[in-house]
């Protein structure tokens, strides 16, 4: 059973992630979960689209498919349907998944294909230098929203729940333990597991939003997250939840019919 370090492709280091980027944390949690699952490297395929998040697949020792912008889930669907015995993990980002790839996202959830989808949501297009994405919070600055984003954002976890994924959770790069456990639970759950990770991008997002230091951004993510159980309780009590917060935790775990199960 390979250890976490064996899941890495040492010859591809150093990685291209900026100093302070959260993507390494998410990658590490994912590979820890894969290791905890007892998966074999040769039975696992990592699929990714385009963007900073999508570079992660190239740093794993397993087979990987680095595809076109937004289409990782469609490519991964092909892999899984051809080889249901493979463990398929998709790395994606908020821009890749919810903007240009939004259609594939909802349909992969609807079909409930047995794979694990890890979204590194840094609220920005990081790779191209910080343009606003569908997850850039209202009022946040980016190069294409110089006076603050005005459009409403997507709640990716709720979208996955609505579209039919069997397992949906959201954590942040602050919640390393919970994130690792959640990814493992997702891997164990048959059907599409969607794990959204709020991740810091000090370079493209933080610098424009007074969160220049990586720690500032991690603290921001910690301070603005609220446990979903607590959120639901407060809502039931009629309390007002500030719209600057986001829920973390397990959104759904269910057993809708699944495509691509191991035979």
């Amino acid at each position, binding site marked *: 059973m390979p250890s976490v370090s064996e899941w890495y492709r040492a010859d591809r280091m150093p990685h291209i992630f900026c100093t302070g980027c959260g993507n390494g944390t998410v990658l590490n949690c994912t590979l820890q979960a894969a290791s905890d699952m007892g998966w074999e490297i040769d039975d696992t395929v990592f699929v990714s689209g*385009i963007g900073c998040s999508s570079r992660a697949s190239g740093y794993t020792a397993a087979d990987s498919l680095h595809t*076109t*912008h937004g289409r990782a889930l469609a490519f991964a669907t092909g892999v899984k349907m051809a080889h249901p015995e493979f463990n398929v993990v998709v790395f994606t980002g908020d821009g890749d998944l919810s903007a*240009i790839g*939004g259609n594939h996202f909802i349909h992969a959830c609807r079909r409930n294909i047995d794979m694990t989808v890890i979204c590194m949501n840094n609220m920005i297009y990081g*790779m*191209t230098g910080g*343009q606003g994405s569908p997850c850039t919070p209202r009022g946040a600055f980016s*190069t294409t929203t*110089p006076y603050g984003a005005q459009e409403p954002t997507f709640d990716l976890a709720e979208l996955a729940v609505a579209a039919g994924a069997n397992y949906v959770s959201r954590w942040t790069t602050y919640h390393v333990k919970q994130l690792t456990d959640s990814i493992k639970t997702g891997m164990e759950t048959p059907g599409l597991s969607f794990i959204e990770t709020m991740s810091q991008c000090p370079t493209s997002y933080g610098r424009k939003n007074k969160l220049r230091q990586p720690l500032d951004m991690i603290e921001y993510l910690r301070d603005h997250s609220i446990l979903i159980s607590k959120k639901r309780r407060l809502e039931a009590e009629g309390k007002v939840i500030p719209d600057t917060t986001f829920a973390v935790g397990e959104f759904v775990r269910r057993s809708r019919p699944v495509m691509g199960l191991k035979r």
Partner: protein
Amino acid sequence: MLQITEGSHAVAEAVKLCRPQVVSAYPITPQTHIVERLAEMVADGDLNGEYICVESEFSALSSCVGASAAGSRVYSATTSQGLAFMAEVVFNAAGMRLPIVMTIANRALGAPLNIWNDQQDSIFLRDSGWMQIYGEDAQEAMDLHFIAYKLAERHDVLLPCFVCLDGFIVSHTFEPVDIPSQKEIDEFLPAFNPLHRLDAKNPMSFGMYATPDCYQEFRYEINAAMIRAKAAYREIAAEFKAKFGRDYTGLVEGYRLEDAETAIVAMGSICGTAKDAIDEMRDAGEKVGLLKIRSFRPFPSEEVRTALKGVKNIAVIEKNISIGSRMLGAVGLEVKDAVYKDSPNIFSYVGGLGGRDIRKRDIKQIVQWAKEGRNDCFFGLREELLK
């Protein structure tokens, strides 16, 4: 007055001066600096239009089609994978005869993923019905936008237009650029006067179902308009020259071709390097010149033939590969067709793909190969990487 500015920002300035009412774009390297600057101009109120942060290139061009059909002057910019993703709408925009201008910051197409320059992206859409004009430097890239809008919107043309500039090489470098005033551009480029537009008082349908009894005629008309665009381009560029003094009147442009025995044919920024290499070769007594192709669509066959009359050897530098074709590159095929009656030696030399640098010594080598009659091939190929 000359200002030192980045190629992308020169393009953004040009677009602003053209007063588009809708700008719709999706970020992709190396196009981003153009659209970021435009987003800023709209946000600051310097450009009185709408900037749409769409969710994909497909939506970018689709919303441009909608806005253009509604009677607005529109703009987008993209490159490479983004353009490939748009391809369906690219054909639709031309078929609906919508005079959209779109900048292409030329970049290689995957796989493998590559963000650097070649010209495969625009060239693969050569049959789409869009005009394609290529700027060599920031000034030309900027000026071609003014010409492009005027050309695209002419009622005897009504075709969309790519204005292409080499990604990074032109888009991300700083050069002195003469930026016209708004008054000058307003005089040169009047407001968009659509021949057809969505109008409740005069209902109009775009892109409807065309059955076999009429579809072919639509395609005929697009091609006829493309042919008319040659003369229209010359007229507009002459008007531009009279007003601004910069000469883009040729769909092709010769450099030291007068008594040349060997000619290089190229598009885009590599023409600058080629001119330097030619100067050095001329100093060494070699009779060599350059033919720069400014317009790849419409392709100026007659001009190419006239310009290359008397040339014995032609070396086409291809920043593209037309895989499986008779010649290696798409430009070479067109040039060969243009000059076939004069029977010079003509070769496609493919290189600079995916951003590999083309140096003066590469160009000198190509000239040597053409003189020796070396057949179509890649240059700068790293044999050690081939299995």
